[in-house]
């Protein structure tokens, strides 16, 4: 039994396996299947300042080894979260991380200020990479000035661990990572979904109400892994690896490439228990390879 504990900035995770924002609800939905304390953490469903209805149906299209979604950040707003959801989940013995989303910098600031007050939320994930909203979201995440500006302003008001979630829809993701590092991000998480599209050939219409949507799942893994590798080699802050992780081997690959912790997303839809299996598989791998601590895996790819 290897030591699975890892650190991300000043947070300790009991193991490096967490669930990705938008794919594990507010953790309570997962608690219907298993004890949340078994995982390293939960990146909660993206919150905005105000209630958002999200995009119209249909919001989902299956693709080869993946799926497109166009949810568009449906949520009841941060105040609803604080009053109605936070009390229910705050005592889960695991890391709970808020995923915050704005249309303007002011939104992000206000959100960060509110979340800063929540005792049991030790970190926020600044989502500047949502491809499914008209304003804000990815617009901030695909240019260095945009990413820098949001990070800088949020950094001023948020005093716990600040993770910035990067968009893969860019020419050079390391540049963006370096930009947010400069502005005080404590970690970067990557990747969010790739902007994609699906068409119903028989009906000759797009499959999503929004025409384009975000691609996730194993299809994107090779690109996500490359980006994590590039970013881990470009910045000094820790990296959270995301994108198509379906099993322990995938998770290990991201850690070898430089991720300190990983997020499992779409795989949850296929198997709500998958993250527990990944924790077990990671443990077995470490034992098999005589590696004492998960920490020793991080960035240990031999090139």
């Amino acid at each position: 039994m290897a030591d699975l504990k890892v650190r991300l900035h000043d947070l300790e995770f009991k193991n490096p396996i967490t669930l990705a924002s938008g794919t594990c609800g507010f953790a309570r939905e997962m608690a219907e299947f298993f004890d949340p304390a078994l995982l390293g953490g939960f990146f909660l469903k993206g919150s905005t300042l105000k209630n958002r209805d999200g995009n119209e149906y249909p919001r989902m299209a299956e693709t080869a080894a993946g799926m497109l979604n166009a949810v568009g950040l449906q949520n009841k707003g941060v105040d609803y979260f604080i009053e109605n959801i936070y009390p229910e989940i705050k005592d889960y013995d695991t890391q709970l991380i808020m995923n915050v989303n704005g249309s303007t910098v002011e939104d992000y600031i206000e959100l960060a200020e509110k979340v800063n007050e929540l005792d049991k939320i030790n970190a926020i994930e600044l989502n500047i990479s949502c491809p499914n909203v008209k304003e804000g979201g990815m617009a901030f995440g695909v240019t260095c000035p945009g990413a820098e500006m949001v990070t800088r302003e949020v950094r001023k008001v948020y005093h716990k661990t600040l993770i910035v979630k990067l968009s893969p829809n860019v020419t050079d993701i390391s540049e963006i990572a370096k930009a947010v590092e400069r502005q005080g991000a404590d970690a970067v998480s990557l990747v969010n979904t790739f902007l994609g599209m699906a068409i119903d050939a028989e009906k000759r219409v797009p499959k999503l109400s929004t025409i384009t949507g975000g691609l996730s799942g194993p299809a994107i893994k090779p690109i996500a892994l490359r980006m994590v590798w590039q970013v881990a080699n470009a910045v000094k802050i820790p990296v959270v690896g995301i994108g198509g992780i379906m099993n322990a081997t995938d998770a290990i690959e991201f850690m070898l490439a430089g991720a300190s912790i990983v997020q499992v997303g779409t795989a949850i839809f296929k198997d709500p228990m998958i993250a527990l299996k990944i924790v077990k598989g990671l443990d077995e791998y470490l034992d098999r390879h005589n590696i004492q601590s998960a920490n020793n895996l991080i960035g240990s790819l031999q090139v």
Partner: protein
Amino acid sequence: MPKKFVADFNVIQNTALNKTNFLIKIQTESKLPGILPGQFVNVEIKNSQEVFLRRPFSIFEVDYKLNTLAMIVKILGKGSEKLTNIRVGDTLSLVYPLGKHFTKPSASDKILLVGGGSGVAPMLFLAKESGLPKQQVDIILGARTQADHINVQHYSDFATLHYSSEDGSLGEKGFVTQHSVFTQNLKTYDKVYACGPDGMMKAVARQAKLAGVFCEVSLENLMACGFGVCLCCIEPTTKGNLCVCTDGPVFNINELKWQI
């Protein structure tokens, strides 16, 4: 204590009911939780290069003694096709039980069930589980032609069966909402339940609304997760966009924003 489960079931029966509908019965070693009509399971489609996500199917029958579940699978596309090729002895991974059930009728209720296509599954389950004497339960089963109907004769123990088909080859000719039981008696029912193609459910809902009768329908929106985390399966309602997989699939028609 978990309320939802992921488990491998053993396939113990796979019978063609007609050309496109199959009855698949599966068994688990663990004790089944309580399951009510309207709830569904999310089934993994193994060994397919094309199918990535699970596929939802209504629960059709439950046997708590044998720990078996049954579902009726209609071949619609690649996932359902693959599923109907499964053999006895294979395993099937299920996420279960999912969704909300139909409102249980009270003992004095007279109810009408309307099922079309694969929507007959939850209707028959509800007929069986309603706890009402047969006299209080009418069911109209609709399909295009006789060949599309499945044989459910043994359900006549639980309900009075009425058939309709578009070409008149079985029962009355026309849509379910043109069936005499529906047109003449609608107002006499305390509760109407419907499951089937969108068009059919909307037609039922329109009439029920006009008649002022309580009516629940079971929706089949596209799903990714099936347990409320992805927010892909939403349906606009009077309470905002709700998830069909957790807030539904059963909805009272007065909640829905259907233009009917």
